[in-house]
């Protein structure tokens, strides 16, 4: 069959025209149509003439080598002397490259085996993740104790910089968020308690919930999203840039230089942010009660002082350092697990946020049970 790229007369196949990448699909189709091969995958027996080829690039050369076979292509100078020297050289180079079999198939297993393997992999991964977390906590605490008595090794500048980034810069968003949640809780309380004529207890509702739970919990969840991800990305980028290796090779301790300043900064920032959250949640509640329930600000404050003991505030605040430690440690550990690729940075950043939010809520639930049993 005549075509733009290939013509056949008895036992002679003439290749012609532009054998380039742009025409790759058409040439391949033409080759299949003209049926020049005796068996698929085997080189043709026919005599091939290349003289009419006007342009040739690597894609075209690959097709020719496939058509005539590697050995014949390497001996191109013997049978196609009219072909320009450069194109001969290209054919020989391509033939050399295609000499070894190029197909490597990944080992394949049945679907059931794959499913079982992936379940197993996930379980093992989960288990080793928890072990790594515990080991890392141990490492951080051990390093912390070693350094407590050696003030020369305290990284004050780094710590203060991290306090600014993760604490001070988060104040507006924490304040705004808790203020709005405070207003919402007050609205809910007002709606429900109105039926019992007990709207005054809205104050207690807001105060209890924010002092014991919401202030610290909201601040912690915000920092888990904001700071744990930042820690992971920072340390992960350093890891893939081999900066961590450089530190270790110089005899410096990455835990001391990178992790402790971040952990200390979180231990200082989160309690303060939790305090800000409590105040601003109360302010949100106070706004709603004074605007829609005719409870004046004075009455709000008096009730607060009379009804709500300081224990609630202390219970709430006591959780902040625990949350801070967990968030910082998970953020840093995930950073150390990053392995080079951009995808890996993304995976571990996601994982650090999910894990730290999960841990914060889990610890909060356990703590709530504990405090209730203790009657605090």
């Amino acid at each position, binding site marked *: 069959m005549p075509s733009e790229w290939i013509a056949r007369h008895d036992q002679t196949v003439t290749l012609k025209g*532009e054998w380039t990448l742009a025409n*790759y699909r058409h040439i391949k189709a033409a080759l299949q149509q003209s049926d020049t091969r005796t068996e698929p995958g085997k080189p043709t027996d026919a005599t091939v003439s290349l003289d009419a080829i006007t342009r040739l690039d690597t894609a075209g050369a690959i097709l020719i080598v496939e058509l005539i076979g590697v050995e014949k292509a390497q001996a191109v100078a013997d049978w196609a002397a009219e072909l320009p020297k450069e194109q001969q050289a*290209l054919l020989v180079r391509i033939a050399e490259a*295609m000499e070894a079999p*190029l197909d*490597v198939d990944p080992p394949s297993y049945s679907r059931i085996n794959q499913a079982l393997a992936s379940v197993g992999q996930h379980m093992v991964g989960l288990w080793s993740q928890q072990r790594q977390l515990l080991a890392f906590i141990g490492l951080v605490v051990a390093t912390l104790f070693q350094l407590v008595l050696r003030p020369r090794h305290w990284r004050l500048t780094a710590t203060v910089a991290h306090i600014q980034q993760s604490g001070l810069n988060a104040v507006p968003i924490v304040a705004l968020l808790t203020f709005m949640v405070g207003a919402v809780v007050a609205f809910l309380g007002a709606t429900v308690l109105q039926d019992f004529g007990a709207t005054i207890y809205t104050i207690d509702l807001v105060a209890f919930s924010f002092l014991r739970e919401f202030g610290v919990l909201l601040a912690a969840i915000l920092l888990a999203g904001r700071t744990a991800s930042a820690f992971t990305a920072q340390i992960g980028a350093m890891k893939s840039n081999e900066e961590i290796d450089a530190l270790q090779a110089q005899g410096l301790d990455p835990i001391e230089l990178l992790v402790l300043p971040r952990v200390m900064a979180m231990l200082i920032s989160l309690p303060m942010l939790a305090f800000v959250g409590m105040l601003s949640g109360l302010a949100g509640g106070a706004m709603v009660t004074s605007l829609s329930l005719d409870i004046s600000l004075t009455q709000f404050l008096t009730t607060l002082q009379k009804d709500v003991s300081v224990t609630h505030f202390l219970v709430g605040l006591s959780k902040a350092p625990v949350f801070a430690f967990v968030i910082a440690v998970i953020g840093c550990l995930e950073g150390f697990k990053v392995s080079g690729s951009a995808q890996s940075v993304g995976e571990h950043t996601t994982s650090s946020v999910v894990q730290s939010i999960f841990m914060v809520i889990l610890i909060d639930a356990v703590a709530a049970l504990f405090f209730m049993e203790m009657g605090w």
Partner: protein
Amino acid sequence: MDSDKPTEQNDQPVIKVRGLVNRFGAHVVHENLDLTLERGEILGVVGGSGTGKSVLLRSIVGLKRPNDGTVEVLGTTLNELNEAQRSQIERRFGVLFQRGALFSSLNLQENIALPLIEHARLPREDAEHLARVKLALVGLPPQAALQFPESLSGGMVKRAALARALALDPDILFLDEPTAGLDPIGAAAFDQLLVTLRDALGFSVFLVTHDLDTLYAACDRVAVLSQKRVLVVDTIDKVAETEDEWIQDYFHGPRGRAAQSAHTASSTNAYTQE
């Protein structure tokens, strides 16, 4: 394929840089820089650290907008084109970045197949077949095709990046220090491969390098960047004779002399063999 581009003539230079000015704040990198890349030549660009070799490459490829001057590529000024026209021109470039810049979320075969699928519109199967041949062409073993960039050595990354730069059989190849980090054998094979492919495919090469052996083995002309402009462009022997302190140190220092004598020895060998 080129015949339908009326703006382009075959004897015109493929890159024409005129009066280029690049500044970063108060720091002037290029001042009134002129440079021409002829069709089918391999131009080596050398210069001390910080003379703006990579910045020059980036302004030609269109990754950095120059502060002044014109950059004409394949008969058109990139900055004046709209998005679609620009993409048309840009797919005729092949760029090898200094650190490889392979896509880390794709394996090697997918890295090279990506431009083939996106620009040449090949089916995935064909594209991956071509990709495997290109990987073999630059000297990578078949098993490497399924590996991810993070698990490769520096030299393998360089080779894979070259295979990707060559994926679309470009008209202009930009190479930023391609032999840095390769062992001498790999570097020599690279030079040879570059010349073979250039002869066969007729592309032009803009080659930023520090490697004197590459300059002697592969480059038709050498441009020296110094004092914020191109100090001299000529064949390597003429450039080496230029009266300039840096050029003299560069070409006639211990390494320069070694590369020169190695080159002379190998070319006499080649002549006697023929």
